[in-house]
């Protein structure tokens, strides 16, 4: 992918597809390292499925037999000297605490590190496409923290859809200001 924020969009879509009502996207950055963590409360995966998720010849989709999302993230992380770790609890094993955690580590000073790019567009795109599920976005850059929790916005909006254009515009500005200040 051209920017890491596009991988974030792609991987977060998996959580929504797994029927997560809440998907947490965390980016933690230091000068050398970038750690991405996706935590969802979706249906999760069985141990058998989990073994194959980073294999490009495994996919849940039915249109063709190759899935590239996680393998791509893994490849891109490994190219910088980092890696990807996936843990999951399937709904059949634990009917309450189920879900998946995907974490990826990137080393920023490596020549093959892809810049993060436009994270705000990624968050806005996710909310635009999935207004009925919640996202918690936290981006820590050294001491600074940028944060958006759609559950808080939903409370204020009282039934007005999160993907209302004016709301999406507000979300973009809200995030932009946090990055600048």
């Amino acid at each position, binding site marked *: *992918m*051209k920017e890491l924020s*596009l991988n974030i*969009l*792609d991987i977060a*879509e998996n959580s929504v*597809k797994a029927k997560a009502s809440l998907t947490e996207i965390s980016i933690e950055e230091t000068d050398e390292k970038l750690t991405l963590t996706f935590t969802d409360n979706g249906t999760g995966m069985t141990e058998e499925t989990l073994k194959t998720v980073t294999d490009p010849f495994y996919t849940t*989709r039915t*249109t*063709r037999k190759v*899935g*590239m*999302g996680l393998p*791509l993230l893994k490849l891109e992380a490994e190219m910088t000297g980092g890696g990807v770790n996936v843990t999951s609890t399937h709904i059949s094993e634990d009917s309450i605490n189920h879900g998946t955690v995907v974490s990826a580590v990137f080393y920023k000073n490596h020549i093959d590190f892809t810049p993060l790019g436009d994270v705000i*567009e*990624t968050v*806005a*795109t996710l909310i*635009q*496409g999935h207004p009925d599920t919640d996202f918690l976005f936290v981006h820590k850059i050294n001491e600074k923290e940028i944060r958006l929790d759609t559950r*808080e*916005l939903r409370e*204020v*909006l*009282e039934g*007005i*859809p999160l993907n*209302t*254009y*004016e*709301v*999406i515009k*507000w979300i973009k*500005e*809200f995030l932009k*200001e946090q990055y600048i*200040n």
Partner: protein
Amino acid sequence: MKSLAELQAIKDKMKNKVVLREGNNELRVVVGMATCGIAAGARPVLNTIVEAVNEGGLADKVTVSQTGCIGLCQFEPIVEIHEAGKEKVTYVKVDTDKAKRIIEEHIKGGKVIAEFTLSDLK
């Protein structure tokens, strides 16, 4: 600084409008947003369409939504136009410039841009 109070004001303003919009979706624009679409540039295409529809005052009759892999990955980004009573139109290899033209000529003007469609692609 953007505040939740400002969001509250948006809510109050939108409350009346939402009622009008319901059941008024004559036209649906669908953008493929699976790995293939995203890698090919679907995110800016989607955002261009969302912006053009809303800034152009088309939001009352046009819904913009996202979908997964359509199975034509080599032709991504793909934009489909679904209109009641008409055959679906599939635009392929869409970029932000093509997206703007699709809104202007097809959505506003009612004319299919044949050269951007799948059937016309060499």
